[in-house]
């Protein structure tokens, strides 16, 4: 079994093999010597190559570069890198050929595909040929570094797992299952990235369905895929919801605030991909949406807890001791205004006037108002809400 924790984004500890010659077995039980960690196969004139090299070297990797496909494949045979970064549009060979060739030479090498003209088709194809990640130029070299970290960890795992499997002859299904897991998982990851760039929803759905079939085959062993899939499904549900709301407002640009308010009310916050979606749908610039989201108190760019506690700091409340109430709530929950607790239960906010001045000082939790609660009251309220959430989560899980 492969360990997917690295793939899922928990970056492994910084690599310790900097500068040392490393002897190890390749996928074919031959002793090899790694003289480089990452090989970048990109055109000589490509300005991004140097940026990538610098970023990876800063990250502690030994980096080699090759200017065309043939040279690249030769170097792979001699230097045995762990990760290969391949431009799909390199001279000398086609990127897809190179990808196929790499896994033939040494299946433990993890390739990452980059391209100047990204499309869903090429992403899916690269993924099928074993690409671990897929990036569209120009990209942030730091993102590449992050991806290389995870790819290197995967390569290491492959080296450790390949040998026992082949030594014992392996169980017939293991290899293919692991491969399909990887494919499905990588595919979902790539789709996730594509999606966040604003993939057309129909394409997204079609891809999801095929991956879903793949994932279902291994439903029991693929906890991680299940998680990833759920994540994507949630995203999709969010998109559908946003589409519904936008349709309700008749695709009218001037209602963008109303749309954002409604999304905020339903999702409790405005995730980046939702804003990108709104931006594409309404043909409004993303920066405009971020300006609006930052300007208004009611919109949140961060997830908000299940219970949104608003302590009113209007004048009437201030005069009648709102700051004392605020201090107590803050102290009891260990939160400053604007913060959310670790398990996403409570978010504390200060608001300017809830318009219940006669009940001052006032606190509002979701839709319920509380007039001048004592510390004992607060303790009881928070306790019962914590219990309520626990029960709710338990029911949901069951």
């Amino acid at each position, binding site marked *: 079994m492969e360990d997917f924790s690295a793939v899922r984004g928990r970056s492994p500890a910084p690599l310790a093999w900097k500068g040392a010659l490393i002897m190890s077995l390749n996928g074919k039980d031959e002793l090899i010597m790694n003289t480089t960690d990452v090989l970048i196969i990109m055109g000589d004139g490509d300005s991004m190559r140097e940026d990538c090299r610098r970023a990876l070297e800063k990250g502690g990797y030994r980096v080699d570069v090759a200017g065309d496909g043939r040279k690249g494949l030769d170097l792979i045979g001699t230097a045995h890198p762990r990760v290969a970064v391949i431009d799909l549009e390199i001279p000398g060979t086609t990127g897809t050929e190179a990808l196929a060739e790499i896994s033939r030479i040494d299946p433990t090498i993890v390739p990452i595909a980059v391209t100047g003209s990204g499309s869903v088709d090429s992403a899916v194809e690269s993924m099928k040929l074993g690409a671990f990640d897929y990036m569209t130029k120009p990209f942030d070299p730091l993102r590449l570094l992050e991806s290389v970290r995870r790819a290197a960890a995967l390569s290491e795992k492959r080296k450790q797992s390949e040998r026992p499997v082949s030594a014992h002859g392996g169980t017939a299904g293991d290899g293919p299952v692991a491969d399909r897991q990887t494919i499905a998982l990588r595919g979902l990851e790539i789709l996730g990235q594509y999606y966040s760039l604003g993939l057309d929803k129909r394409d997204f759905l079609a891809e999801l369905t095929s991956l879903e079939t793949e994932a279902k085959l291994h439903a029991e062993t693929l906890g991680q895929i299940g998680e990833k899939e759920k994540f994507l499904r949630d995203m999709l549900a969010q998109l559908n919801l946003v589409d519904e709301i936008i349709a309700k407002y008749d695709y009218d640009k001037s209602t963008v605030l*109303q749309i954002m308010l409604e999304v905020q009310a339903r999702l409790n916050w405005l995730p980046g991909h939702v804003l990108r979606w709104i931006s594409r749908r309404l043909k409004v610039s993303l920066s405009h949406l971020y300006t609006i989201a930052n300007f208004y108190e009611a919109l949140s760019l961060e997830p908000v807890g299940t219970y949104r506690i608003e302590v009113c700091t209007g004048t009437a409340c201030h005069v009648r001791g709102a700051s004392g109430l605020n201090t*107590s709530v803050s102290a009891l929950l260990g939160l400053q205004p604007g913060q959310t607790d670790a398990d996403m239960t409570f978010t504390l906010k200060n608001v300017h006037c809830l318009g219940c001045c006669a009940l001052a000082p006032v606190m509002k939790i979701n839709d319920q108002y509380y007039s001048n609660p004592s510390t004992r009251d607060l303790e009881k309220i928070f306790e019962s809400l914590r219990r309520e959430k626990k029960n709710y989560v338990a029911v949901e899980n069951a």
Partner: protein
Amino acid sequence: MSRLKTPDDLFALRNKLDSERKVDRTCVTICSGTGCLATRSQDVVAEFERQIAEKGLGDKVELRRTGCWGLCERGPIVVILPERICYLGTKAKDVPEIVSETLMEGRYVERLLYKDTGTGERIARLDDIPFYKHQQRLLLEANTQIDPKRIEDYIAIGGYSALAKALFRMKPDGVIKEIEDSGLRGRGGGGFPTGWKWKSSRDCADDPKYVIVNADEGDPGAYMDRSVLEGNPHSVLEGLIIGAYAIGAKEGFIYVRQEYPLAVENTELAIRKAREYGLIGENILGSGFSFTITIKRGAGAFVSGESSALMSVVEGKVGEPRPKYVHTAHKGLWDKPTVLNNVETWANVPLIVNNGAEWFNKIGTAKSTGTKIFSLVGKIINTGLVEVPMGIPMRRIVFDIGSGVPNGKKFKAVQTGGPSGGVLPESMIDTPVDFDRLLEAGSMMGSGGMIIMDEDTCMVDTARYYTDFLGHESCGKCVPCREGLRQMLVILDNITSGKGKEGDIELLEELADVMRVASLCALGQTAANPVLSTIAHFRDEYEAHIRDKRCPALVCRELIAFVIDPDKCIACGLCAKSCPVGAISKVEGEKTVYRIEQEKCIKCGNCLVVCPPKARAISKVASMDLAAGAKKTAAGKKGGKKK
């Protein structure tokens, strides 16, 4: 429900509905405004429904959920018509008694009646309660007669008859003239003559024209627009349609802040119902005049209530003000002529059209006509919404209607006009409350917030509070407002934390002057008012903070401490339980007492509140005195040892 095609249809419907409302039948009205809902009036309604069904009183008793009655602090409010018996603070468990005693036997439930603070006497009838006795409720009275969710209730009490009158018996110019003659001035803050605004938009050749209701009541401490919109949304709609007819607009918008979900809900419903009856939409009542209304929700930004900023929001932009070289009446929404008035102003329109300008003119003063709703809050016994004729002396509002300051404390000042306004000290309490006199007194009418402050309120802290508020709400577009507020806050923070220096007051005044002259919109131009007005009337408090490092009202946290008097402490432990940070601990000794660890104390004041009245062991002191006292005791103890 059928569409009303002519004014006669409307009048026929009204007569039918009115006759169905048996005036002599007992009607239990339960306030369902936000204030009373917060104290769970919905439970009271449910319990009444159950009890009435159980006792078989369905034919004799009608149940009605109404809008806000005003005395929100004592909610939920139940008023039984036609006698107008008023029960305050009614809980669901009180309902069986009300049903069996009052509804069936005609007796009062004494403990739920209003108790006069002076005489201790119980008052049964709503109109005898001092809070209501001294008001003149032209707008708010309707709140109590109708269920805001039923357009039929509004029509039954004569609703939309002003619209019929305007459409069929008056020309648009005639309507404008009536409004001009009435002297109606904008209730949102500035007091701009409404008729003039309408006329100048009508006279503008550009087309189309728009009308807007400003319900972005961002003013902290004010909530009258909320109550009108929640309790009687149709009165605002009717005013808006009449206004649209007068200036020739086909489209209207209502901008409501999102903190008011019930107002949005009730207004949305009202628009839908009015459309079904044909009172909004194509060819209203067969007059040929067509008009649509759209609701836009705000998202929590005070500055968006400024007219040009509000129009930006309606257009889908960020709600920042723009320079108004050309008035919005000429170039407003999408650069077209736009009339923007606030909720209360629009709600006054049907009254004026129905009763005539002359009638309206007689109420209030010569230059400020009609009534004004105030939200009377803060340190006052009867907290809530009050509607009074313009020109009434402040003293009557505070002491006759509000019954004065609670807990035997001394009245210090009243703050009006919200963050753009100022304070009136006790010496100016006889000032008549109208637009011009308040301005002369260094404050302003504003939208109607009236915050009462007693001797326990620190005026420097109040000024700091408003400056902080405005600093948050400033959109940041122009430098004098953005930076001016930031610097003012730094100075005020210093003063309230005991780090003030000589010259700070003068520096504040200088900053204020620049902000007033150079800011882009009214927010910045008036932002220094709270500071200037507190300096003008309470300079001594500023000086006490700066020179003596002492907060006379014992409010500013850095300058105070809480202490337990060991002689008075009865060791009940309530304070320790109420302390959120565990700063209070038991000290065993000859006499077990509790003690506050000053290093841990966050000065929330909870212990002071819970300390039983029979003990009163906890008190607030100036930190200066505490330090001095500690030295003294330490010296005393040393002396003891020597003996």
